[in-house]
């Protein structure tokens, strides 16, 4: 983990209530896709945890939705403003277990961490399929980006305004077989995926956080392998250990 001042190199709207922000600064503490950063926002006491969507030697891309006052404020920040951020939090996804043809399933702002994951898996020579689900057409993002990576990408919208109508699980019959799955999204979606996908897989969870780095026990959950902190031993849990 590193704490540093990161510079906003862009902060732009990419879909309804969805923003993409690029931050420049030290990324040496990042190693796995699925890790997250914790952003201090002026005037708010707690930091805001946001998944890393992509990173390189000196920049991090995140995608966030404006759901409350913190993210609303974040969306107003201009290029070149600085943000105090903790970087390199959480365990992230483990690509070793993926097998040859992993399936990635993301819903809403659960989609971003899958982007870096898809990139990594494809780099490792795997054949990646992706289902991304949204409420409606105007909220869809990154379909193009996933396709550009070479991942076969299926989109669902709950209201049917774009591509497959329904939830991510309603597109499962379209993707054919897969060796393993990785998923991130709202809890009801994760549960549906848990019940629908028969291979092994990994789930990325959200929880309200005090610190984001393991100090406060604010984010604990029970697993079959003992109590874990979402921020430290998570946010990614293995399918087999999950207790709903």
């Amino acid at each position, binding site marked *: 983990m590193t704490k540093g001042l990161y510079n906003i190199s862009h902060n732009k709207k990419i879909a309804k209530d969805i923003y993409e922000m690029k931050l420049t600064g030290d990324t040496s503490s990042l190693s796995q896709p699925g890790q997250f950063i914790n952003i201090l926002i002026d005037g708010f006491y707690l930091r805001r945890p946001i998944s890393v969507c992509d990173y390189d030697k000196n920049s991090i891309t995140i995608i966030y939705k404006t759901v409350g006052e913190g993210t609303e404020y974040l969306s107003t920040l201009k290029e070149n403003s600085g943000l105090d951020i903790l970087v390199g939090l959480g365990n992230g996804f483990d690509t070793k277990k993926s097998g040859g043809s992993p399936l990635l399933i993301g819903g809403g702002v659960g989609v971003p961490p899958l982007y870096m994951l898809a990139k990594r898996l494809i780099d490792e020579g795997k054949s990646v399929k992706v289902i991304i689900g949204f409420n409606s057409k105007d909220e869809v993002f990154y379909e193009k980006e996933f396709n550009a990576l070479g991942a076969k990408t299926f989109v669902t919208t709950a209201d049917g305004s774009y591509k497959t109508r329904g939830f991510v699980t309603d597109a499962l019959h379209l993707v054919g077989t897969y060796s393993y799955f990785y998923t991130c999204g709202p809890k009801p979606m994760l549960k549906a995926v848990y019940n629908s996908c028969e291979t092994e897989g990994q789930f990325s969870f959200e929880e309200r956080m005090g*610190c984001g780095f393991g100090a406060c026990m*604010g984010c604990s959950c029970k697993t079959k392998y003992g109590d874990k902190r979402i921020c430290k031993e998570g946010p990614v849990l293995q399918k087999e250990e999950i207790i709903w």
Partner: protein
Amino acid sequence: MVDISVMLCGIELSNPVIPASGTFGYGYEFREFYDINILGSFSFKGTTKEPRFGNPTPRIAECTAGMINSVGLQNPGIEKVISEELPKLKECFNKPVIANISGFSVEEFVYCCELIDNCEQVGIIEVNVSCPNVKHGGMSFGTSEKSVFEVTKAVKKVTTKPVVIKLSPNVTDIVSIAKACEDGGADGISLINTLLGMKIDLKTKKPVVANKMGGFSGPAILPVAVRMVYSVYEAVKIPIIGMGGVSRAEDVIELMLAGAAAVQVGAANLINPYAAKEIIEDLPKVMNKYGIKSLKDIIGGAHNG
């Protein structure tokens, strides 16, 4: 050169800054951030007789200038803390540590203190009496003079280590309660634990934390902490460990002027893992600004004249 060392219950601390229980785990996790030997000491996560998962999540809510937590004393139980956590800590912390102990009956407090008494790593036992007293209707031990007196007496019998009682601020008369601790033989008082608070989510229209209410801490509560330390300082002779909202060197000095012999830093560690370190580093600068030569000299300074 200013002198930032202080004495606490017969132990010399290189500085008065002590991460508060529950915000610094069992210590060794922070060594990723800095050499924790720079700390005056630290108080480890509240530990109980039995292992506890604690309360359901969400356990955290944000407030103006503070936060609410309802962690509910998640800990692996005293035995595992002694057998696993303390040895791990030994590798990165060579100073006496403060053992924060909780319990739901006098027997549980006694049980933990008896075991801790044998741990040479532990310099001070901090007995947190804010948990509900299950044998007496659920009001916390810390809200009645009688029960703090009893707990203090009981734990003092089973340990030779200094015992500091950590009090809840959610009481009508903190002074009488602190005096009851002193009468029971306490070697010090820790002030304050969290204020009881609640945050309601306007979207869900329900309390944010699953447990409905929780402990409110952070900069918002500093004025309450200063007031309680000030009042208790006038009433007892034993040292006070001040805490509640400390996030900078100025706050440390304010609590010491009110009467604290040492100061704990809680929620600030969560927002900034380097908080305690930065406060220690800032102390000399801030002391110079306000013409303070030695921290030992300012304890209770706001009471003179």
